C-alpha cells in the first residue's frame, strides 16, 4: 500500500527570559545611560597600554588589569556596509548602515550603527569622520547611541528623540 507522504508541522517557539549582568563591563553601560559617556579601558602595563573599545577590564594581550578611561566621542570609520536584507529581528529597520568605528584614542574598533540623512556607501566609507549621537531615553544598552557623519551632527541632535554627548 503506497500512500502519498504528508508532513505534520507545528508552530513552536523557544523562549528564555534573562536578568543578565554585564559583569566587569557594567560601568560602560551605566556611564552611557546616566552620563552619555563612552568609556573604554587602557592596559595598565606601560609597555602595552592597549586601549580597548569595547572595554575589557583585563588586557587580553598581556594579562594585566586595564583601567577605565573616557574616550572621545568622535572617530573614524574603518569599514562599513549598508544592510538591505536581514534577520527577522531587524527586517523592519532596513536599509541600515553599520560599521566598525575607531574612536579617537582607541586601539580597537567598535561596531555601531551609522545613521545618515543620505545613506549611500560613499557617505559612510572608510576614513569618514563620525560623531556619537545619543537617545534621550537610554536603557544602558548599545542601542542608546549611534554614529552620524560629522557634518550631519547638528541636524541629528536637534531632533526631539536625540541629543548630543558630553
Amino acid at each position, binding site marked *: 500500500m503506497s500512500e502519498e507522504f504528508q*508532513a505534520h508541522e507545528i508552530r513552536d517557539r523557544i523562549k528564555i527570559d534573562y536578568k543578565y549582568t554585564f559583569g566587569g563591563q557594567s560601568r560602560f553601560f551605566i556611564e552611557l545611560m546616566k552620563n552619555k559617556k563612552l568609556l573604554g579601558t587602557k592596559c595598565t602595563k606601560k609597555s602595552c597600554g592597549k586601549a580597548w573599545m*569595547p572595554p575589557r577590564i583585563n588586557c587580553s594581550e598581556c594579562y594585566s588589569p586595564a583601567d577605565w578611561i573616557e574616550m572621545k566621542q568622535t572617530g573614524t570609520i*574603518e*569599514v562599513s556596509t549598508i544592510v*538591505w*536584507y536581514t*534577520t*527577522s529581528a531587524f*527586517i523592519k529597520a532596513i536599509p541600515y548602515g553599520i560599521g566598525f568605528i575607531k574612536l579617537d584614542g582607541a586601539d580597537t574598533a567598535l*561596531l555601531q550603527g551609522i545613521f545618515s540623512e543620505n545613506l549611500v556607501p560613499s557617505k559612510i566609507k572608510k576614513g569618514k569622520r563620525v560623531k556619537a549621537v545619543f537617545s534621550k531615553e537610554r536603557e544602558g544598552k548599545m542601542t542608546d547611541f549611534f554614529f552620524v557623519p560629522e557634518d550631519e551632527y547638528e541636524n541629528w541632535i536637534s531632533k526631539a528623540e536625540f541629543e548630543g554627548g558630553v
Partner: protein
Amino acid sequence: MRKVAIIGIGITPFRARYLDKTYFELAFDATKLALEDANKIGAEITHKDLESTVYGIYNELFERQFMPDIFTNSYLGMNNKPGTRVATGGATGGYTVRMAYAEVASGLSDLCLCIGLEKCNDCYDEQTGTTTPEVLNAIAYSADMTYEYPMGMMAASSYVSMVNAHFEEFGNPTEEHMAYVSVKNHGNAILNPKAQSPMKITVEDVMNSRIICYPFKMLDCCLYSEASAALILASEEKVKELGIEKPIWITGVAAANTDCFIGNREDMGRLYSNIYAAKAAYKMAGLNYDKIKQQIDLAELHDAFSGQEVISYEELGFVPFGEGGPWIEKSFEKPGEGPWIDGELPCCPCGGLIGCGHAVGATGIMSTGEAALQLRGDAGKHQIAIEKGRSIAHSIGGPGAAYAAVIVMANEEGLKKP
C-alpha cells in the same frame, strides 16, 4: 600519530527543506550511505563496527533541540560508545573532521564516524511568512550578544566587512570579480546531482540580482540548506585488515581561531585564521604554502559569499595578496587557467556552498568528502582530472569568520609524489 584514511563517504542531497525528514533521520541516511560506500571499496562493516562518533552540528535553534547529538546517537544505533559534538559555526564540518582525525590518529578508535548535519528551515518568520529571516536570526545569536547582535550584525554583514576592508586595501575583489565566483560555482553545481542551486548564469545576472548587504547581492550569497554528510575514518591497521581498495589519506589537518571581534583585528581585510590553518595543514602534509597551487589537483573552498572565496585564493596561498580578483577574472573561458573547473587549480568543482547550499554542520564534511571522492575518481559527472593525487578542503565560520580549518588529503599515488 597514526595514519588516518577516509574509507567511506555518504552525502545526502542538499535541499531547501526536507518536509519528510528530521535532522536525525537525515543523519541516518548519510551514515547508511557512508557505510554502503565503505563496503563498495572493500570493507565489510555495519554501524556496529564503528567505535565512536564525532558530531558536527552548529545550531541548536535550527534543530529546535539542545544537545541534538545525543538524540542522533540514539537514532544511529550508536549507544554505549563515545560520541562528542563539535560546534564552530560555519567551520563546524572542518573542525569535526579534525577531531575525528584526532580520535583515530591518537589510537582511541580504529573506526570513527565523522558526521555533520543541519536542518535550518524549520525556523519560520511569521511577519514575512518566510523562513530565511528567522534562520538568519537564529544565526545572528552567534554574534557577540552584548556589543554586536543589538546592531543588526549577521552573517552577511560580518563577511562583507572583511571583503570591503580587503577592497579598500587592494582595490579588489570588485563586484565583477565576485560575480565570476558566483557564475563558476552555480555552473559547477549543474553536474552535481546533490546540489541545491545549479544554475547557468552570467556576470550580468549576478550584478542585477537584489542587493543583500552592500556590495553583496543575492547571487553572491550561498543559500541555507538542509543535509547531512558522513565520513568513516580508519586507522592504517584497519585499512589493511579490511582490505580497502582506495583509501584517501588525511595527510594534514589544521585549524586556527582568529579574533571574533573584527574591530580588534589589525588587518580587517585579512582572515589570519585561514593563513595559519593553511600553512600548518600544508606543513603537516609536507607541502609548501608558496607552491601549493602546483601541488594539489583541486580545492573545495568555503564560499559562503563569493567575495570570501576570492580572498581565500590569497590566504590559502594560491596567488599573492591582492591578486585573487584578477586571477578569476583574467582566466574566464581560458582552459588551463584560474580556479575554473578546467583551470590550473579547480576551486569548488562540486559547486561549493554557492552551488550546493550551506547545511552548516554538514558543509565542511561534504567538502572534505567531495575532495576525497575526486581523488578516488568517484566524483561522478563533475569528476576532474587527477594528476597529483592531492586535494584540500576548507572550512570557515563563526562571528567574523573567526574559525578556519584546512584538511589536506592524498590518494596512494599522492602520498608518493613530491
